[in-house]
Every structure is written in C-alpha cells, then in structure tokens.
C-alpha cells in the first residue's frame, strides 16, 4: 500500500471530473482515506491555490468529514420524520446499546462508528439504517442490535 502522502496526492491530483474545487478535492480524499488528515488539508490547499484557512472552513462545515482516522465499521441510523413515525427511536437506542455507546461517535476500541443520519433516502422502507454503506430497511430494534453485533463479531473472528 502506498504511504499516506502518496494516497492523498493521488486522490487530489487524479480527480476524474473537469471541475476541481476545494470541496471536490476533500471528497476525493475522504473516499480514499475515510478522513481528512492535516497533511490532506495542506495538500488540498496547495493544489487549489487556497489557504489552510479556506480549506478548513469547508472541512468544518460539512459534517461528513472526519478529522481522525475512521473506525473499521460504520453504522448510520436515520432519525428523520418518516423513520421517526415508524419507530426510529427504539432502533437508535438498541444500536447504541449494542455498540456500548451513549451517543453517536466512535467506540473506544476504534471498531465501530455510529452516526445519526437525517435521511438515507429509502423512506418507503422506514425505519432505515445502513451498515458499512449497505442500506437496511424496515429495521426493528432486535434487527438493529443483531446487525451491530454481527459487524462487531465479524471483526473479532478476523482478528482471532
């Protein structure tokens, strides 16, 4: 695997689309690394002839950008109105419980990120959550709990 710096450079310099901006460069880095490192902020600034401050303004605006390395897995749970009406809150509670978290965030061992989402786009199949970017509809608290447990166990097996 390339070093961090090479991966950042490749992501920033090899964007396929014609319009390259600070935001597009940051999204490219996020796709590659899963987060925006300090080096990435510097690279994006220099590539876009902008200041660190300009880049940081964009990073800090969009909540999809992380500034620390990602956990191995990511679970998102929707709490938007469609999902709320058909039982999102018990799903949120059950997912947090299975992850051992009080609120959205990373587990201390860095294995799982739980994030709230305001709309995952499959409202007709609410409540909706996603596990490592795969959508799951009509989630129950039991199913949410089981999905999180399965994700955590799969990692344990690999590690063991």
């Amino acid at each position, binding site marked *: 695997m390339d070093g961090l710096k090479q991966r950042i450079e490749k992501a920033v310099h090899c964007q396929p689309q014609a319009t390259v*901006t600070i935001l597009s460069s940051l999204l490219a880095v996020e796709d590659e690394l899963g987060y925006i490192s300090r080096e990435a902020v510097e690279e994006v600034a220099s590539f876009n002839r902008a200041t660190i401050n300009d880049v940081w303004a964009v990073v800090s*605006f969009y909540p999809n950008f992380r500034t620390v390395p990602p956990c191995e897995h990511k679970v998102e749970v929707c709490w938007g109105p469609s999902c709320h009406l058909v039982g999102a809150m018990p799903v949120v509670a059950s997912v947090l419980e299975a992850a051992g978290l009080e609120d959205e965030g990373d587990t201390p061992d860095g294995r799982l990120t739980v994030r709230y989402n305001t709309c995952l786009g499959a409202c007709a*199949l609410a409540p*909706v959550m996603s596990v490592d970017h795969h959508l799951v509809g009509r989630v129950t608290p039991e199913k949410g709990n089981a999905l999180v447990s399965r994700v955590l166990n799969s990692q344990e097996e690999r590690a063991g």
Partner: protein
Amino acid sequence: MAASFAEIRDQAVERWRSLTDSQTPWIRVGTALCGQAAGAEMVADAILEQLEKQGLSARVSRVGCLGLCFAEPLVDVLIPGQPRVVYGNVGLDQVPELVASHIGGGQPLADLVLGCLGDEVGDDLPDLQQHPMKVREQRIALRNAGHIDPLDIYQYIASGGYEALNRALTELTPAEVLEEVNASGLRGRGGAAFPAGTKWRFLAGSNAPDKYILCNCEEGDPGAFNDKGILESDPGTVVEGIILAGYATGANHGYIFIRHGHDGPIDRARAAVDQAYDLGLLGEDILGTDFSFDLEVALTGDSYVSGEETALMEAIEGSRAMPRYRPPFPAQVGVFGKPTNINNVKTMAYVPEIIARGGEWYAGIGHEKSTGTAILCLSGTLNYTGMVELPMGINLTEVLQEIAGGVPGGRKLSFIQTGGPLGGVLSAEAADLLLDFDIFRAAGAILGSGGIIAADEDTCVVDLTRVLIAFCQYESCGKCFPCRMGMSHMLEVLERICRLEGTSDDLALMRNIGENMQAGSLCGHGQLGFNPVASALRYFPDQFEAHIIEKRCPTGRCQVPHFSPRLSRR
C-alpha cells in the same frame, strides 16, 4: 465521424429487440435505494448464482424503481411469448424455487406474484395495472422507471429517448423550444413551483458567452426520494432535459448536483453522461449541429441547505454551502459569476416528453395552473408506501385512503406532513385537498417536492414537530443568526414541552422567534422555519394545551429525546 441519430436509434432498437424478442428470459430486479434497503442486490446476486447452479440461461438487469417500494425486492420476469410477471417481497430463500419454476419450468410461482405488467395477463394472476397504486397513475417523468436498465443509454434511446433533442436541434429554434415549455405551463418541482418557461426566459435574455444550467438532486428532504429515484431509474430523461434547457436558453455548461454518498444516483447519472458523450449527444457540435453543451456531475457534502439555489452554487464552487444575498439573481450572476438557471431533477425529467409531444399536450393534463403530474413519495404509516406519478387535481384524501391503501391495522389517519420538513403538517380532515400547488399553498401547506409522510392516531403531533425542528436546527447553515439561534431556541422549547415542562408563555415565545427568523433570514430555511410549529398549532392547538397545561401527552407516545443532535454544525 460520429453516427447520425437515425443510426444510433436503429442500433438501440435492434438491441432492445434482442432483449425482448429473443428466447432468453429477461429478469429485471429493482435496485433503487428502496430495493437496496430491502436487500435487492443480494436477491439479484442469488438469482445469478441459481441460474448458474441450475444450468439455466437468462439475462439479469438491475433496474430502477417501479414505484411499489412497499413490496421490494421486486423481481420482474419476462419470457418471450408469455406475460411479464412481477414478484414482490422476494426473499433470498425463495430465489431457488422461483428460478427453477419460472425460468426452468416456464411456470410462474403464483404465491409470490404481485401481478402482471403489460397487455398480457397470465391465467389466475392479478393485473398489476389494476393495483391501487398503479391504476390512476399517468407516467411522464417516470415513464421508463423500472422498465429500462439505467446504465444502458441504448435502452433509453430504444424507449424514445433523445428523439426530442434530435427534433429540437434539427427542426426547432431555441425560441421555439422555450415556447413549448412555456406553453406546457410546467412549474418547478423543487418546492417553489415557479414557471419553468419564465425562468428559462430570464437566462435566454442574457447575452453573456458563458451560461450555466444546474440540475438539483440534493434532495435532503426526509420523506422525499423521487429525485434520486428518477436519476437511479432513468437518468437519460434528466440528461436530455438538461441539454434541451441548454439549447433553449443558449447555455453551454451544465451540472447535475447530488449529495456525496448516494452512490446509486451518482453512478447512474455519471454513466448516462459518459455514454451521451460517447454517442455525440453531449460535447462539441451535438449530433452534427453547431450546438455544444458540456455536462458534469458535481457532488456536495452533507448539508441540507446546499439544495437552496445560491448555496448550491457555493458548493459547486467548492465552498461552504451558505446562501447568497439576492439580488443579483442567479440569471444575472450565478455559479462562477455567470448567468445561471436552476431546476429540480423532476422538472428536467418532464422536458423531453414536453418537446416530443408539445406543450399543449402537457398543459391538457392536470388542474388549472398546476399542469401535468405530481410525483409523490408516500411514506409513514400507510399500507402502500412508494413513488407514484398522478395527474394534478386528484384529491389528496383519495391518494392516502385509496392509492396508498389507508393506514395499517384499521387505525385512523391523524395528520400528514408534506413538502419537506419546512412544509408543515395538515390534519387528516384538512387533507381534503386537490393536488394543486396553489390549493396547497392556500391551505398553508406546500406540495413542493412531493414528499408526503402520513401519521396515524398513535402519533403525537407535538413530538413530530419537535423532530421537524430538530432537523431544521441541525441543518441550519449558520450564516443568518436568527435562523441559527432561533432554531436551537425553538428546539429547546419544544423539548421541554415534550417533557411536559412547558409553560404558558412558550407558545408566544416560539411565535416571537419565528417572526424574527422570517424577517432576518436569507433563505427559505429560516424564513419558513416556523412553519412546522405554526401549522401544528393551527390544526392541533388542543394537543399543545394538553402538554403545557394538563401536563399529559394525549397519545402517550411523546418520545422524550434521549439524544440531542449537535446544537450547531461544529
């Protein structure tokens, strides 16, 4: 030398015939976001696996959304000479039998069949066109959704795609194209319902050498998924609509704007753009004429406000998605400082059919000044949830009770929430309205983007209002402080009302905050931010009184928040 359109079309028709007339069965699996959420990708993989295992041959395509999201995963089987059969709620464990029986034995698996599509209906099988969600549909923008492979431009062309563009470029002047759109009475489907022809005329009136067409698929409204649904199901109609808009207004650049992370719509839109370039339908000298147009897919980060037209331009330029002051308006100074026109995905999706069939044809559908169809996303406590395209003028109560099949379990409908979180709520009684932009507006609701979320009698309206404001608070971009602080303050008040700790001054306090937000915010987010509370208060004053004065939640369902979304965007 590029092929002529006639050659491209012949090739497309030939390819389509080989799909529909050959002896090889064609299996279509709906894999739009709704299908994905129901596990359709796994079902498609399982079908491929079973075909191989059972030594059978069939073509498998991953298509878009037929609209019957409640029955996802949908599997649609076409065996030449037999009726086209659609299966609903297909589970992984049912795939082996389905493949063996239908593909292997030519015998549909009757228990799983949702119905037949097309002119032929099988013996003892229901006609899917007669399903409550289908029977009153009139599909214009969704005409190809669920039928064609969105990753194959030839299937779009074989279904009549790019005929309108070819005709426009060879037979019509830009002014004539604009006139057709004007005559159609097409109004913007993004929320404001502004006449598209008028908007296009603003841009056409500018002599600037560089002009832009933006197509907005940000679609952050919870409960709305039709923009993403169209791009996932039939990106070709959107791309063709944008090129026609460019021709009519003299613009040469375009962007389709989508939120990062929605891979289905993004990948399918990109494929439709790339393939259009390959066939000479985009780029320099389109179809051998002297009209040139470039189109690109641009992504934004997570930000609801980036769907606002000027914030969207900031995001395309790579900055924080915060709205700009107006004037100058986008038609004078838009993205990269150039004159710009912005339309929603749905608006663009209608354009090819309007040019193909004429503005008068489109204007003949619908109700008064709301011409054409409404593309509704039905979600919440309804029997049939999904995406339907209905002529304007149908009664909303009929939509909820008949087309969507009413509320499950014999419970009663209490209220609905339309037009995104800022659209507010309507009581079930007040939902006796015709689908019409102006009638909705007069009732204090927004038809807007077509999201309709239904809530049954077990739902607490005060609690849902809290969730709507929690959303608005989380998504305030923070530029205008009345919105940034007002949303937070209003959320605090609603949280304490839900905890039964509200005081008799709280309603006046929220009104005061709402007035300040309306007067002091640059965009609709703050200006309309009080709408959810105002509309809930209007229809359900007794519910608020019960919480504040009697200290009880009448439904007993108030879900006191055990998490609070971030109070500001970092």
